[in-house]
């Protein structure tokens, strides 16, 4: 597929195929989407569709959904979903919305792949960049990834965040910093954690500015971008305030991510840790976990300055491991960006191990959860252990990708070292 031209027919075929697959599963197996909605791997307290329905029900009956412990999602989702025909009577419209968002994400990913940013950014060109997959393949990998399909069918609201992030990156690589910042503001408004992607996204937008109206000073550019994000977020919050009539939504939507008051199991590391944590140390470790999560942003952005898209990819991988309520939807976003680095795959050392560990955890995770919750023959440690394995597998993949990218950078300085053994000191 390298460099091959994609006909409009193939494009349409890919999108139609992905849409038909999702619709077919939803209509032929009508019980499956509800089953997926209930899975803790797909729906977290901050993205669950069932909680969204409850919030919508309360909103439509003039009860504040934020004056309760069930709904923790952004207020603007409520009018969006109340415009749709009711899910109970006409579920097809909800499915169509989710499928459309998935297809839009795929098209944004396609634009990112076609820009060639992964192989050659403004400050760095990889000698291996010719060896890459086309946007068609990358979009197909995203659309037919079982994790993406499951998240779409489970109607987790994380697909909106995924689309907003991918759209922000696509806008940034196509030289539209304002669009990128606006999309990132929406992503942060929906899920809060994408705010951590701001520094690399600012650098990416800076590197890919259109020459005719470029801002030369990094500091000035960053200040403008930050101000844009802050301004758009302020507008969004103000709109939410008018919509719900109070600021109650702030603690309920973002506070729950900061304090982890809802300890529903998920694939992440936080829930069991804070179930078992001693009360007097709870706030200390919450602070440590958030500090740890944000510590990667600075380190990666500075060290891999020449390839901001790599920083974004690695950060998304790290967030899929360490954020408070991760789901496989976040992993699907990370897996969507990894194929952009086809050229460094030969430099990765543990692909088999990490792939095997991730597959192993994928198969055993639901089984162990069943043993704990339904069969009663296992206890909470079963599911906890498998989430540990899953996260170790993912962090191995992140480390390995980072190693490969850095080695690729190093081989530009030392072209004679290609194919030779190297070590780090």
């Amino acid at each position, binding site marked *: 597929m390298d460099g091959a031209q994609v006909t409009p027919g193939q494009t349409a075929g890919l999108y139609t195929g992905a849409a038909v697959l999702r619709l077919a599963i939803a209509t032929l197996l009508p019980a499956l989407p509800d089953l997926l909605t*209930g899975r803790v791997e797909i729906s977290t307290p901050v993205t669950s569709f069932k909680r969204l*329905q*409850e919030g*919508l*029900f*309360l909103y439509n009956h003039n*009860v504040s959904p934020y*004056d*309760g*412990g*069930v709904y923790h999602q952004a207020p603007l989702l409520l009018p969006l979903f109340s415009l749709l025909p009711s899910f109970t009577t006409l579920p097809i419209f909800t499915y169509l919305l989710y499928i459309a968002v998935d297809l839009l994400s795929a098209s944004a990913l396609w634009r990112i792949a076609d820009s060639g940013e992964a192989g050659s950014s403004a400050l760095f060109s990889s000698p291996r960049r010719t060896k890459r997959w086309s946007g068609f393949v990358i979009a197909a990998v995203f659309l037919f990834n079982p994790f993406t399909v499951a998240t779409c069918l489970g109607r987790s609201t994380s697909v909106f965040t995924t689309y907003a992030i991918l759209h922000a990156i696509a806008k940034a690589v196509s030289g539209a910093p304002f669009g990128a910042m606006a999309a990132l503001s929406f992503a942060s408004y929906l899920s809060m954690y994408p705010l951590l992607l701001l520094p690399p996204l600012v650098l990416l937008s800076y590197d890919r500015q259109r020459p005719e109206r470029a801002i030369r000073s990094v500091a000035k550019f960053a200040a403008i971008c930050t101000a844009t994000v802050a301004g758009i977020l302020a507008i969004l919050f103000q709109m939410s305030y008018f919509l719900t009539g109070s600021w109650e939504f702030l603690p309920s939507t973002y506070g729950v991510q900061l304090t982890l*008051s*809802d*300890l*529903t*199991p998920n694939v992440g*590391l936080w*829930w*069991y*840790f804070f*179930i*078992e*944590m001693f*009360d007097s140390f709870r706030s200390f470790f919450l602070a440590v976990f958030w500090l*740890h999560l944000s*510590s*990667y942003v600075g*380190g*990666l952005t500075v*060290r891999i300055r020449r390839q901001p898209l790599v920083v974004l990819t690695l950060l998304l991988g*790290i967030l899929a*491991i*360490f954020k408070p309520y991760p789901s496989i939807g976040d992993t699907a976003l990370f897996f969507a960006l990894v194929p952009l680095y086809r050229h460094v795959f030969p430099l990765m050392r543990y692909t088999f191990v990490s792939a095997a560990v991730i597959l192993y955890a994928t198969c055993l995770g639901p089984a162990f959860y069943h043993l*704990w*919750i*339904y069969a*009663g023959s296992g*206890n*909470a*440690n079963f599911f*906890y252990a498998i989430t*540990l394995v899953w*996260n*170790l597998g993912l*962090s*191995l993949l*992140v*480390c390995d990708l*980072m190693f490969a990218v*850095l*080695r690729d950078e*190093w081989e530009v300085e*030392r072209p004679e*070292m290609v194919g*030779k*053994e*190297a*070590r*780090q*000191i």
Partner: protein
Amino acid sequence: MRQLLPFLSFLWVTFLSSCVFPTTASSDYHEQLNLRPLPLSALLASFNFRSNTTFSKFEKGNFRFFPRSLGQILQHAGTRELHLRFSLGRWDAEAWGARPWNGAREGGTGVELWAWLEAETDEEADQKWLTLTNALSGLFCASLNFIDGTRTTRPVVSFQPEGDHAADTDMQLLYGVLPHEVVCTENLTPFLKLLPCKGKAGIATLLDGHKLFDASWQSMAIDIRPICPSGEECVLQIEQTIDMVLDIERSKRPRDNPIPRPLPGDQLPCNTSKHYHSHDTCFPLDHSKEEWTLSQIFGKPVKGTCPLADSTVPPVCLQVPNSRSVFVSKDVAEKKNPDGVSRCFYISPETELELMLPRPDDGASTDILTPETPLLYAERSFTGHGQERGGVQTILRNPSPDAEVEFIYMETLPWFMRIYLHTMEARVAVQASSSNNKDRNSRSDDINKSLIQQVYYRPALDRARGTQLEVRMRVPPASTVFLTYDFEKSILRYTEYPPDANRGFDVAAAVITILSPGEGEGGAEAGAGARAAAAAYNLRTTSLLCSLPTPDFSMPYNVIIFTSTAIALAFGGIFNILVRRFVAADEGPEAGLAVLVGKLKARLRGAAKGVKR
């Protein structure tokens, strides 16, 4: 002399009190025991103690029949009306029929408390509520102080004040329930101490913890309310009620040999009218044909009457048809009531009352009264399996062939049951006889929409307050309605589980308040503001046991260590790659094991040379 002085003052007080408050017939205190045999060899015993005190005396602290300890608590906490319930067991409505007092004097399993407090703001009400629950907790030796914010609700339509209150007073209703509380002897003793005769004389002598808490169902109630008769001074009324259903056979077992043993086949009481009755098959009789006496059931006879009680009120009444003969001890006057189904007994203060209900004649069919059919049957259960999510299903059956029942269904749920209100639905059980399937569906849709008329919902807030759900609904005549909704079980912090975490968490009984017919319609329009219809009948479902997922309690340290290790591996791995620079394998300084081994070898070599020299 020092010892004599208190004695003299005691005499003086006794003398004074006998002068000022002569124990005449027009006493403000009366007590009564109602005995009603129920089917399946059960006996309902309803004790009722009631006394009044005028407001002027109450405010001056001049307590006579009104218990001082309780009165001071009420004054301190600004309580206008108070209802406290201690209950145990299940009222078997299918067999026993309608509840005593129309369900107004009973609570759900555990402890239930609701009160109208004088308060202008919510904070003031919460403060007074805290004072009240803590004081009552001490008085009744119950864990009432555990009624905190998560267990307190403010019902909007379910409860109405029973007493007469001035229209302009700011009152707030607070309701708290402890379904897990085990009611036992330590609650009965303070209860009896509130009585003027302290359980030493009168019908209260029958109340013994061994019998009361051995009952199939029992409910102790305290109701305090102001009553304003027209043209007279307002009085504060305290009513203490104990209802218990005793199993006659079980109560008659001797205390030293309490283990039940199967009867030999030929002694089983069988229903001989069944066509399959023969020497080896037996259908058990609905009504026990056993005889019983008061002292067999309660362990002792009634010891006289309380001298403070109104002597015009008969202390003991028995509800059996007038045709049955009842034996009583001598000096007891029996008076049959004109309704033909009850009789009362008068005794003098010093005599003991012993009562014996002999075996009815085999031929007599009217030996026991058929229990009254309740207005509504209700049962509630959990659906679903697993510890992740579940559902609640309440089956409400209206036995009446022609009258519709309108009621308010109230649930107070703990915060860790996250209910999904959008899944709540009420449907009429589909009768199999209906012919056209499609037609039936569309019709039942119409009916279902009108089943739920009004919903008042206050969602739970994690660790701050519980769910409050009040549903005003109706059940059409002769039909069964299923009310269902889904909920999710949340997982708690390990310190929030009780010591017996795997037993589960008790969920309080649902309170069903049936509105008296006719008044219901006006109430729906007037909403919460107007004092809606008075309750015609109350009932409560059983409490439920909800099992939550549990973490492994034994390994907080292990989890902290494992998770920290996983994080350290990722953090270390990533920053290790980030901060180091690449060199070829053969460049740069030696590192690792090889360097150590080399150094060690050099040392050894040096040492060996030294030894050679």
